[in-house]
């Protein structure tokens, strides 16, 4: 952790700020949410890493998808994701958003979350322990440092692909496209 190194703060304040102030939006999709209260409260205390829960997507920059994603929930995951300000990071929590997990055969859940929104990292396991969230956070710090956590840029670049996948599973979407065409990043 290089939170106390003043030189790095002066060199790239934006990057350091994003690293050590992760405002998390916990999307309570499935059973994974039960691991989150011990993570953010007194037992494991996520706040010492700068991770605190916020109430609305507008204030968040870390999106945790905790548990299986049913088709009905996917609609709201996409809407929440599009409302978050950039730069934004997504972390899939548990096996179910990763590859379907134990709901592989289900008619009602999706198998691969990263077909619909870009995901920066995965926490595998069923269920992952709260410590795994902190491992994920430290990995995310490394990714932010190297500039590899660019899911939001991928979403802009390949928006047509994601929108097509979303429409394929959800039918007609009632909100207009976020970007009119694929946006090239500078």
């Amino acid at each position, binding site marked *: 952790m290089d939170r106390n190194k003043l030189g790095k703060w002066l060199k790239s304040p934006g990057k350091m700020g994003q690293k050590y102030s992760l405002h998390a939006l916990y999307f309570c999709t499935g059973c994974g949410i039960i691991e989150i209260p011990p993570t953010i409260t007194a037992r494991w*205390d996520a706040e010492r890493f700068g991770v*605190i829960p916020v109430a609305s997507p*507008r204030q968040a920059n870390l999106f945790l998808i905790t548990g299986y994603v049913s088709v009905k929930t996917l609609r709201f995951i996409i809407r929440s994701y599009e409302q978050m300000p950039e730069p934004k990071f997504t972390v899939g929590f548990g096996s179910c958003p990763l590859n379907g997990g134990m709901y592989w055969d289900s008619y009602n859940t999706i198998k691969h979350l990263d077909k619909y929104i870009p995901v920066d990292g995965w926490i595998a396991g069923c269920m992952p322990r709260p410590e795994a969230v902190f491992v994920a956070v430290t990995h995310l710090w490394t990714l932010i440092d190297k500039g590899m956590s660019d899911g939001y840029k991928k979403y802009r670049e390949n928006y047509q692909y994601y929108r097509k996948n979303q429409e394929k599973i959800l039918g007609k979407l009632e909100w207009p496209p976020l970007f009119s065409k694929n946006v090239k990043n500078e």
Partner: protein
Amino acid sequence: MTILEIILTILLAGIIGLFFLGLSRKIMARIHWRYGPPIVQPVIDIIKLFNQTSISHGILFNFGIIFSLAGSVVVLLFLPLGRICPLSNSGGLLVILYLMLISPLGLALSGGEAANPNASIGISRKFLLALGYEVPLLLILLAVMTYYNSISIVEIVNKQIQAGWSFQSLPLILSGIAYILILPAILGLRPFEMIHAPQEISSGPLVEYSGKFLALTTILHAFNVFIGISLFVNLFLGGAENPGYFFLKMLGVFIIVILVNAVFPRFRIEQAIKYLWKWPTLLAFAGLIIALITT
């Protein structure tokens, strides 16, 4: 010279306010038996928020938050911070009483433009709460003004430096206790946190704020914390000769408020109004009558 004092006041108020916000998170964490974030965490948050994209919801959304910030900054200039008081010759308590309403008004304009139902609920609660604490606050200020026969804060502070804190003297102790009772409502802390209430109305008026707008509201909160406590220190704890001593007095008051914040749950809004119009108002009214009799 005055311009220098103005810049110094705003800077000091911002730094002290942000330090208090960070300290409150640390103290709360220690009470919960956890380690807690570093004290500079609010500054880290602000740096991050200024480096995010931010979504505006209209002209009034941008204007309201600036309006609110300006209202808070103007109130700061009337409050003596140690010996530093840029506008000591003009205004006084009556002007502060008027200007203190600008800040919630601006935030209401700004949050209302976002047209989110949670924001509307938060704003209505904010105004109801303001209605609740303005009544005892007016009675308290009237008692102080009657006792010292002056509306100038600098003069009140000078008289206290000669004759001892007004919180120790008998005529004003009831008013002082009443101010402590309404202080959490002025600062928007628990048990009067129903304005923001993240668990029920998704942080109320701030629900649609992102990026630099949220950073500005954090700075606004820091200023408001400073104003609420600094008014108490100036009126009842005798101000101070220099900013350092003033800061220590503010720190003491703030820690008491944070301890209350750490252990109490939230009131509902009608319970808050019932409380605010009963005990603090009764105490403040008794204080006003005593002040009238003794002068």
